[in-house]
């Protein structure tokens, strides 16, 4: 009888071993990547990090190397794993929910960040590393990762919204981009472009918020889709104004719907690259999409501050982002925080963020540093004065309200509100009040 039990038990053990084989595979892979990254000695505090972008990994590996050179005795052994965007956020969400398996550090994209602040945030407050530097940082970019006065994430960039004009097309229509101050001027210029060059002035997104949000957020005051204290605000003129303006632009054919629905669709890249539209307003980090996906426009694009609704109002807003967070389950919280501060808050780190990633860094005191004038693929494409626009609008970068309700609200806009207004041409106020009822 005993033998029998033993036999069954051994069978079960064998089965468990087979099942466990997959996970042990992963571990060996991790240690491999740890040994080839950073190039540091085998000693030091082990830190695990998850990200969804290969370029971010290159940046962190480089910063870990520099950290180890600058801080003998406090070496870290950073191993960065890159997962696909959705996978990484889902895995992290489940790991933090269940309390096991989360890394020490993780990149969390702004749209997903509110999910991680629900309930008791399983992320570590970063106030002790953020507060000493607060005067040099664009504060509105920290507030989007905050809950109850605690900062939980540190961004790479300001994501200042700017407008990219195709100079070639504007010249054909005799339009000088520096004369466009308000959105009304923009519309008038758009009519000229349409008549003279036969192409629309711009494209408007229906399945994402990059066309709408900068226009909503640049309105004076803190309210956008939500009020500053978190009330639903989508029926207010702050939101309906830009949507009515956009609907009108579509009707008069000055703007068309973005092919593929958003400015990250292959169809759009192809159309824009072929001179299909005269301008687009997107955040600064969109420069990388031009250099990588629209090579034919090299030397033809000029970057300018966005037009305003009324003269004297703010000309930009901080859009998108990736908050790097330290998890509560991390065993080396202090080391993780110290490295994070070095990589993303220090002057050195911010200069590297521009050099390696082409982002407008969080520290405004590096924007006129000589290192930012050095030539790279972005200055080759857009010319050497990229940061002049940014320093020009430095004090006018509006923040956005991001909280736990954000994912649901933006989903409503991305799936129905904008489509109903711009494609189906429905009444703006009616659509917005429908959506508001639905969201309550």
């Amino acid at each position, binding site marked *: 009888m005993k033998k029998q039990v033993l036999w*069954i038990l051994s069978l079960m053990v064998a089965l468990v071993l087979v099942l466990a084989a997959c996970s042990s595979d992963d571990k060996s892979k991790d240690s491999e990547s740890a040994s080839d990254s950073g190039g540091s000695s085998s000693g030091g505090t082990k830190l695990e990090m998850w990200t969804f972008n290969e370029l971010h990994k290159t940046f962190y590996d480089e910063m870990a190397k520099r950290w180890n050179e600058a801080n003998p005795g406090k070496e870290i052994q950073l191993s960065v794993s890159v997962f696909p965007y959705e996978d990484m956020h889902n895995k992290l969400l489940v790991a933090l929910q269940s309390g096991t398996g989360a890394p020490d550090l993780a990149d969390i994209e702004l749209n*997903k960040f509110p999910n991680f602040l629900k309930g008791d945030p399983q992320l570590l407050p970063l106030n002790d590393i953020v507060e000493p530097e607060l005067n040099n940082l664009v504060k509105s970019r920290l507030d989007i990762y905050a809950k109850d006065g605690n900062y939980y994430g540190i961004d790479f960039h300001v994501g200042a919204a700017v407008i990219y004009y195709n100079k070639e097309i504007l010249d054909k229509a005799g339009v000088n981009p520096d004369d466009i101050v308000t959105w009304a001027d923009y519309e008038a210029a758009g009519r000229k472009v349409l008549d003279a060059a036969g192409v629309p002035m711009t494209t408007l997104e229906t399945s994402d918020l990059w066309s709408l949000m900068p226009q909503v957020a640049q309105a004076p005051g803190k309210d956008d889709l939500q009020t500053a204290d978190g009330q639903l605000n989508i029926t207010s003129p702050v939101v309906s104004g830009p949507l009515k303006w956009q609907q009108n632009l579509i009707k008069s054919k000055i703007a068309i719907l973005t092919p593929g629905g958003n400015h990250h669709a292959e169809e759009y890249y192809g159309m824009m690259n072929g001179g299909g539209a005269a301008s687009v307003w997107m955040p600064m980090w969109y420069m990388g999409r031009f250099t990588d996906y629209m090579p034919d426009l090299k030397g033809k694009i000029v970057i300018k501050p966005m037009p305003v609704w009324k003269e004297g109002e703010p000309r930009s807003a901080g859009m998108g982002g990736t908050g790097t967070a330290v998890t509560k389950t991390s065993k080396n919280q202090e080391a993780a925080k110290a490295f994070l501060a070095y990589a993303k808050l220090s002057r050195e780190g911010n200069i590297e963020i521009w050099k390696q990633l082409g982002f407008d860094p969080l520290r405004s005191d590096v924007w006129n540093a000589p290192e930012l004038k050095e030539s790279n693929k972005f200055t080759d494409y857009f010319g050497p004065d990229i940061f002049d626009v940014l320093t020009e609008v430095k004090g006018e970068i509006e923040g956005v309200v991001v909280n736990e309700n954000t994912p649901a609200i933006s989903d409503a806009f991305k799936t129905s509100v904008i489509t109903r207004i711009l494609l189906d041409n429905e009444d703006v106020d009616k659509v917005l009040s429908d959506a508001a009822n639905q969201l309550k």
Partner: protein
Amino acid sequence: MENASPATADRTAGINGRRKLTRILYSQKIAPWLFVLPFLISFALFFAYPVISAVNMSFQQVLPGQVQYIGTDNYEKLWNPIFWKAIVNSSKYTFYTVLILIPLPLVLAVFLNSKTMVLKNFFRSTLFIPALTSVVVAGTVFRLAFGELEGSLMNTIVVSLGFDPQRWLRSEALGMFALVLLACWRWIGVNLLYFMAGLQNIPKELYESADIDGANTWNKFSRITLPLLKPISIYVFTISIYGGYSMFTESYMLWSGNRSPNDIGLTIVGYLYRNGLEQNNLGLGSAVGIVLLLITIAVTIVQLKLFGMFRKEE
């Protein structure tokens, strides 16, 4: 016995042990259990446990550090037009795919099984190749083919036929058409394979005797082939219903994300994903999953009943 050395005792124990093992392996009661044990364990671990905890979670609000029971709140929240739209979309998709993906592969299988067919192996493999491609790649290619610019593949075709260019993925009917076309392109080969296997099991003698009786091709098809393919048809039907209702990746790839204009491509699983993970509400997501389970069970039972699967064989 007193004189027996320890070694002999060991040996006898060993022989006894081996005998016992043989007895277990040949035992009519234990051996079957032993052989299905791996399945039972994996079933319990990867199916029964998740289903039970999903039922449990569907009555909870699940947030880190704040898990609490909230009664049937999650199910009440499902009473909204968007979830209804998801159910309608999934049902339409299932209906159309079943409508096409049963008869078409069946007829194709009969053709490919016929002696007079030329280039049999060529067609067999070309029809099956789409099933080997990844949905992610196929979805992306279809997205570009169904682009709204005039230069996209589908627009070039319809324009050359004299129609206006269409915004394929922004219209409810055309979007569903693209989804169903993608599904058909991908799954015809697989269903074809099932039917071919079924056809090869039909004894040749039946056709021979039908020939002797003077039956024509149509009669042979409707009186012999179809009835004898019934078991395999029921199987294909069942997995098609399940596959239709659980469709997600195709829609996700076709609209490059879980967001289609006016939710024309939203499926039940897409709604689950949106609420459970994209909006971090795993409780509500679980409730959606349970509703999906109930829907598929109900539809399948009705279908099996109609096919007479529960009747005793005569």
